[in-house]
């Protein structure tokens, strides 16, 4: 195959690096953009540059935010005594959508995984412990909302052990079980047995 535009090929190459985009979709997107009006494409380009340049992380909880501290950490209506620990910022956005939790967050930025060369010092565990130790803002509950895979489990186990000496802090974890709207017969055995083991009073 002979290409006629090196510029187009470069754009395709960059687009194809995006998650969920193969070369075929990348070509379609590039050709689509080429057909659009100049200002539309400029707006997209500006948004992308801004995304990288202007966005920051909240120095308290670690979530991706325009301001530091973020709007959740500065909101006086949020319960300051409860911290929900999650792996990534996107988990915060998901939980926020539910409107179930009115406390604050702590984003670890990863989970313990020796295979990926990530130890307890490489995620924001010491920052969490600082918040727990802060006497001006007593914490009475830490909710662990980590993924139920082996790395999430290991991280939860490690955190629970660190938090044990704090008598006034209750450590809880989100329940694992049957997804809403599904049927028992389609649930895998591991999930079902976990759901049984952690069943609650009706």
């Amino acid at each position, binding site marked *: 195959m002979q290409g006629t535009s090196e510029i187009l090929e470069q754009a395709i190459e960059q687009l194809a690096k995006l998650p969920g985009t193969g070369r075929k979709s990348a070509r379609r997107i590039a050709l689509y953009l080429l057909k659009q009006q100049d200002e539309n494409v400029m707006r997209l380009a500006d948004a992308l540059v801004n995304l990288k340049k202007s966005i920051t992380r909240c120095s308290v909880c670690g979530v991706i935010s325009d301001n530091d501290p973020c709007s959740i950490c500065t909101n006086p209506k949020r319960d300051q005594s409860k911290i929900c620990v999650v792996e990534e910022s996107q988990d915060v956005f998901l939980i926020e959508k539910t409107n179930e939790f009115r406390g604050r967050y702590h984003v670890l930025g990863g989970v313990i995984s*020796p295979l990926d060369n990530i130890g307890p010092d490489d995620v924001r565990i010491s920052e969490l412990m600082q918040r727990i130790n802060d006497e001006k803002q007593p914490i009475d509950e830490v909710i662990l909302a980590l993924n139920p895979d082996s790395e999430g489990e290991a991280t939860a*186990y490690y955190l629970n052990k660190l938090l044990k000496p704090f008598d006034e802090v209750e450590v809880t974890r989100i329940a694992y079980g049957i997804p809403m709207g599904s049927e028992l017969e389609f649930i895998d055995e*591991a999930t079902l047995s976990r759901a049984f083991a952690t069943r609650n009073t009706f």
Partner: protein
Amino acid sequence: MRTTRTVLQNFRNHVDTEVEWAPHMNVITGHNGAGKTNLIDAIHYLCMSRSFVASSDRYVVNQDAPYFTIKGHFEGNIRSSFDVTCSYSRGEGKKIFVNESPLDRLSDLIGMIPVVVLAPEDKKLTSEGPKERRSFIDSLISQISPAYLKDLLDFRKVRRQRNTLLQEYRGPREVIIEYLEPWNAQLIEYGSRIVAKRTEVLHQFQEYLAKQYELISGMQHKPHLEYQTFCEPSEDIQEIKARYVRALEKAQDNELEREITTVGPHRDEIVFYLDDFELRKFGSQGQHRLFALSLKLAQLFYFSEQLDDLPIFLLDDVFGDLDAQRTEVLLQALIEHAGQTFITSASPVPFDQFMNFDGEKNREYTVDKGMVTAL
């Protein structure tokens, strides 16, 4: 469970092959290298998502093609009718589809179509190292218990994490001991469940093995198997957990020094005995062969009783090694008790003396250069 049709594209020497199968006995004959084993290996792919011959999917693609596809139609007691497709390409790897919808994990396929294979390599089961025996018992239990398969996969992952930590960490001893703890907890959780399940199944399996060995060998010796793990085996998970905790504590210094996980079911051994002598050390060639055959027959009957369905049985080139009397005993047993069975054979065995190839219940095929002809 049975398969009615298999379609192969670029699968080894089968460029474009479609075969309709008979519900009971399917006998495939042909010269060496004609493509007999490839046919039943394709069926194995659709049951277990991998080859029973080749170590990697790469070797299975026809050398002139970039991909292979296998499709099969299956009919069973629990699920009455469904299609399984397995496709592999060098760029995209392997994908499995059940009724055209892709499976999230290849392991979700295991157990859907129970299968038992008997192949010439099976003599390794009794003559070589413990790895072969562990994979035999794992394949056996995984097909009847998805929870066991999940425990195995989780255990493997935790062990890899733990080994990496042991190998890579350069720091104070008390810190690594603290860092190991979260992994120990999971190692013990999954490992104990694996040991309890292996104990339970091997205990039940004992009787099936004795019965089949008696049938095949004409009862010269009494077979027996012994399960060995890091502690005294038990079917009680809590008991194993307590023993695992103690064993891991005891092994700590050794593990830190050798930088590897030394305690767990990944080191298990199953020792086979005939009467009271150990088969691996003292068995003759013939005894190894008959023992492997009995193990696979025992698996077939164990599945049949555990599941509400008969497994598919694949016999790859095993009749050439058996004398006339054993051939007759084995064939009679299969005809009377087995479900759908596939037999490949390069040597002329008088199969038609034992079964009627009417084309309805039993069918005979010849294979030549990847071309299959039903007789």
